[in-house]
Every structure is written in structure tokens, then in C-alpha cells.
């Protein structure tokens, strides 16, 4: 039996509940309490699925797809479901992971950015030294405050919006650290970056926290996932493109190319794209692939983009442009010759 939240009717079936008589979900302003009819049950977050630990000790696992969607909808009341990350932040995190102290298995740090109505944008970060052992964790809060002050001097519009940690899981220590950060910012975001590449990927995930538990009894914190998007400024995208090309070279190095070579490589890229499109068209024509209307529309846009100008007009435009450029080149060369001459004359 489930009540509706925000006017949204929830399906009462479609979960695979095992051996739980009744689960009721209450809404309590932005926080969520999960009350179970069975006493003393703890709903906790283990490896991405809900588990309910029964009082007799047996563990039951739900599939929670519908749960997810409802939690996400709830989360929209607090933050939007989007976290926008700039590549600078990820590069910083990777770098500080590489420089971690001996024996530290993970690094943590503060995230800075801006909040607007629907999403959070993370634009900067710095790492904070911390010590973590089996049963305790110590974070250098003075340092964090100092760094934040310094950063504020440069970009006064950035505020603390959360913190990051490398590593795959969310441990109990994370909860403590998260609590500290909730004092600094409302609704802090927690970002995890799996630099140890546990699942052969660098999982970059963001979470927001919410209280949950049995009211009056044990209260816990639950981390709900948020969608992560990558945003770039234009210049950032161009920088990242260059860095992408670096990764292809065997020695992991790359020089910055010079003028005409860049145009040539851009032309090469367009040629590749055209080849892909052509092969797709040939497949469609020979019947191997179903024709898709939207793709067809894009193709028509593409072909129409080459403007139809009469030959004479185009020739005159081309010539005038070329003349401009040649004249400017000539002037530039002339100026350079002049100052070289001047130099020589002075030295005489």
C-alpha cells in the first residue's frame, strides 16, 4: 500500500517485494521517511540496491526501478536532477589522486560552483588533506576554509556546493564528511570518481543526500543519484579537442600544430564525416538499412547548406576576398621589412 506523492500515483505492483507485508511511504516536506510496518528494519544503501535487513537477520533485496524514479522526482524539489560538470574539475580530481600521500586510498576535496533553479554547475575544485583509517576520519577543515577564501578572491561568484571523493563506494566515513559539508552549503552534492577503475571504467557519479529511516528510531542518510552532464565553454571544448588528440599518440605527447596544418586537419575531419554519411546512404539505397526520415531531413539540410550562387557572383566574391587577404599579407610583409630596415639604420 503506497500513498501518492506530489499527486503522483505510484504503482502498487511492479516491485518485487519479498516477504514484506506493507511498506508505506510518507512525504514530509523535502525529506523522506520510509516507514515499514516491520519493526526495527533498516533500509540501507548497498551497492546501488535497496536491502532490507530483517530482524531475524535475513537480507532481502528489492528491485527498485520505480523507487528510483520517485526519488528522483522528489529530488527535483530540492535540486534539479542535473549536475553539470566542467572538465577542469575532473582533471583536477584525477591530478590530485595521482599526487596523493602514500597509504591514502582515496582523496577528497571541495567542489565550487554555482547553483541555479534547476541545476548545479560545478566549475572548480580543490583537494583537502584528510586522514582516513578503519574507524575514524579526520579532515583538515581549517585548510578547506582558507582555500575557499583564497579562491573567492579570484572568482567571487563561486560558492561551495559540495565535495568529491575518489573511489567506488560510499562508505560510512562519507556520511560524516557529508555532514560537515552540509554545514557549509545547503544540500551539498557528493561526487564520486572511480579512479581505481574498478569496473574498467571511471564511473563519475553525483549524489545528493536525504534523510531516511524509521522516525523516532534509527535515522540514516541515503544518497540519491543525480544525472551528470558535461558542459563546456566553447574555448574549453576546443582545448579538450586538442587534448583528445593527444591521447591518440603513442608517447602521450602532442605539440600544438601550426596554421595551415590545422585547417588541413579540420578538412580531414569533415571528409571522414562525409564518408560515414555516404556509406550510410549507400546502405540505405541498397536496402541493407531502413531509411530513417529524420536522418533524411538532416541530409537535405546538409545538401542545401552549400549555397547556390551564380558562377560570376561567386567568382567576384572569391576574388575580392582573396585580394583583401593578399593585400593585408603584402602590408604585413612591408611593415616587417620597414622595421628591420629601421633597426639596421639605427645601429649604423
Amino acid at each position, binding site marked *: 500500500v503506497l500513498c501518492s506523492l506530489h499527486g503522483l500515483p505510484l504503482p502498487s505492483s511492479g516491485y518485487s517485494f519479498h516477504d514484506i507485508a506493507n511498506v508505506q511511504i510518507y512525504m514530509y516536506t523535502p525529506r523522506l521517511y520510509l516507514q515499514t510496518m516491520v519493526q526495527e528494519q533498516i533500509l540501507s544503501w548497498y551497492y546501488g540496491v535497496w536491502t532490507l535487513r530483517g530482524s531475524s537477520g535475513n537480507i532481502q533485496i528489492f528491485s527498485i526501478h520505480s523507487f528510483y524514479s520517485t526519488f528522483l522526482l522528489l529530488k527535483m524539489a530540492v535540486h534539479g536532477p542535473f549536475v553539470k560538470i*566542467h*572538465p*577542469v574539475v*575532473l*582533471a*583536477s580530481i*584525477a*591530478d*590530485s*589522486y595521482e*599526487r596523493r*600521500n602514500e597509504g591514502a586510498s582515496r582523496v577528497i576535496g571541495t567542489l565550487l560552483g554555482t547553483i541555479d533553479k534547476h541545476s548545479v554547475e560545478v*566549475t572548480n575544485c580543490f583537494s583537502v*588533506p584528510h586522514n582516513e583509517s578503519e574507524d575514524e576520519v579526520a579532515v583538515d577543515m581549517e*585548510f578547506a576554509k*582558507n*582555500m575557499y577564501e*583564497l579562491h573567492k578572491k*579570484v*572568482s567571487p561568484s563561486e560558492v561551495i556546493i559540495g565535495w568529491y571523493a575518489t573511489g567506488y563506494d560510499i562508505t560510512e566515513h562519507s556520511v560524516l564528511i557529508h555532514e560537515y559539508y552540509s554545514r557549509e552549503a545547503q544540500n551539498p552534492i557528493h561526487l564520486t570518481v572511480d579512479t581505481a577503475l574498478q569496473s574498467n571504467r*571511471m564511473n563519475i557519479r553525483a549524489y545528493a543526500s536525504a534523510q531516511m529511516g524509521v522516525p523516532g528510531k534509527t535515522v540514516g542518510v541515503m544518497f540519491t543519484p543525480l544525472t551528470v552532464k558535461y558542459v*563546456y565553454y*566553447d*574555448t*574549453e571544448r*576546443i*582545448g*579538450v579537442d*586538442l*587534448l*583528445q588528440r*593527444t*591521447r591518440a599518440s603513442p608517447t*602521450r*605527447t*602532442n*605539440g*600544438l600544430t601550426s*596554421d*595551415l596544418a590545422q*585547417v*588541413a586537419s*579540420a*578538412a580531414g575531419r569533415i571528409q571522414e564525416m562525409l564518408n560515414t554519411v555516404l556509406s550510410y546512404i549507400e546502405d540505405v539505397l541498397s536496402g541493407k538499412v531502413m531509411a530513417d526520415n529524420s536522418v533524411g531531413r538532416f541530409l537535405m539540410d546538409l545538401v542545401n547548406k*552549400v549555397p547556390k550562387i551564380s*558562377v560570376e557572383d561567386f567568382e567576384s566574391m*572569391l576574388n575580392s*576576398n582573396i585580394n583583401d*587577404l*593578399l593585400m*593585408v599579407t603584402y602590408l*604585413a*610583409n612591408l*611593415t*616587417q621589412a620597414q*622595421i*628591420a630596415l*629601421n633597426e639596421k639604420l*639605427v*645601429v649604423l
Partner: protein
Amino acid sequence: ALYQQKSSVSASKRMSSVVLVVLKIIKHYQEEGQGSEVVQGVLLGLVVDDRLEITNCFPFPQHTEDDADFDEVQYQMEMMRSLRHVNIDHLHVGWYQSTYYGSFVSRALLDSQFSYQHAIEESVVLIYDPLKTAQGSLCLKAYRLTPKLMEICKEKDFSPEGLKKANIGYEHMFEEVPIVIKNSHLMNVLMWELEEKSTMADKHELLSLSSSNHLEKSLQLLMDRVDEMSQEIVKYNSYCRNLSKQQQQKHQYLQRRQQENAQRQSRGEPPLPEEDISKMFKPPPPPPRMDTLLIAGQINNYCQNVKEFTSQNLGKLFMAQALQHPSS
């Protein structure tokens, strides 16, 4: 001494910078430096064999009027101390600056770079050109003062004779250090992730055909500089003329003196006392040539940029022509 000179010339022939630095510089300009203000910051890294490696950087806040008590040195010290805690290299290896259409050759830059290079021999200034980058490809250059220029700055002898002695031309002021970007393996993984998640990049800025705006601005800046240059040249010319006139006058005076003395001797009178001619004909002060040198260097820079730009555009125009006439 000779060995030392050789090692300082061959030191740091190349420079490698890390992904993080590039991204940070781009971001700093984007957020804080709209318009034609420059943004600056400090580069951190270390020297490895014959390479200078830049591993991190942090930005300087802008100078605002209401920030009179802002202490740059304090900020820098605190920042470096904090960074040391998190194991970031805290060796100061240079600084970076953004530029507007390539106009960075100025007195201020020279002074700053000189003070940096005086302290740390291999330091460089990294010039980031955001407008050129927005046109399609990252424009990041590293410069260092040549040893000759360092000598001159040390002695502060900017007179024409001094510069003539050092035989320095505007081309020998800065030497460009080639940059190489290195990625660590973890960074590579990050790049793969980003590539997957992000959409196909809009790379069309590089191939856009519009050029007049950029050309106009560049030419305007070039014209301003050329004007300044011509003023300096006029100043120098007038100085030369004055000097030669004075020489002539001195000569004439001496001759007259001699004639008079000869006359007096012939008449039997005591000769006139030798006067100190150098006090009478004080030579005019020579104009400092450093500014002229800087302007010449700047003009050279503009011309280089313009030529690069035009060569790119010519290529693009010919490509457009090929599109229009596929048969030709």
C-alpha cells in the same frame, strides 16, 4: 663562466605542460576576463633534465580599485603553502597571461618576466590567446627573454650606445619555447570517458569563412603601433640632428677660439683661458631606445599573426571554391 653560459642556453629547450594547466587557464579567462582585460596567474612545476614541466597553476585575482589593501605577495604565499599540503609542486616556474589580438609585448611584461627570470632561470611566460582559440584551435605560446636582453635589463642601460653594443634587434628579444602537452594514463582514461559522454563537437569554427572582423581589429592595432613607432623615430631623428648640430657648434667654437688665440698671440696678449667646453655644450640626453625596441617587437608580432590568419583563410577560400565548382 663559459660552461655556465652554455648550460643556461641549452637548459629547458622544451616545455611540457599538463592537461590540467591548459584547462585551468581557459576556464580562468572565460569566467573572469571578459573584454580586453588581461587575466594573469602563476605557473607551478619543476625542471626535469632539459625540459620544463608545468604541472599546475593558480590564478591571480583582478585588481580592483576598492581592493587597495590587497596584498599580492601574501596571496601567493598562502596559496603556495596550501598547495604544498596536497602535494602539488610548489616551485614557481613562470606565469601566464591572456592577450588581446596578440598585443602583449609591453614594458610591464618585460619587467615582470625579467624579475621572474632573474629569480628562476628557466621561467617562462605563457601567453594564451582566447580569441584565436575561439576560432578553432588552442593558441598557447611560451616565451622567455633571451640572455642578451637579460644582460641589458640587468644593467638598465637603455641608451642607443648600450643597445648597439649588445647588438640586439627586435627579433632577439623573446625566444619562443616549443610546448608539448603530456597526458598521464589516468588523464587518458578521463579523456575517453568524456569523449563517450559528450556529443560530437562543433568543430566548424575553424572552417568559417568570415575574416573581415578579425582583420580589421588586427590592422587597427597595427596602425596604432606604427604611429607610435613613427613618433619614436621622429624623436630619435631630432635627437641625432641636435647632436650633430651641437658637434658642429662645438667644432666652430673651438676653431674660433684657436683663431682668436692665434690672433692674440700675434698681438702679444695672453691667450684666453681654456674654458670647459663640455659644460657649455651639454649634449642632449639620448632618448631611451627600449620602447622603440618593444614597439618593433610588437609590430613584428602583429604582422606574424596577420600572416598566419591570412594563410589559413586563403586555404579556406580555395576549399570553398572547390565546393562550388566540383568539376574544375
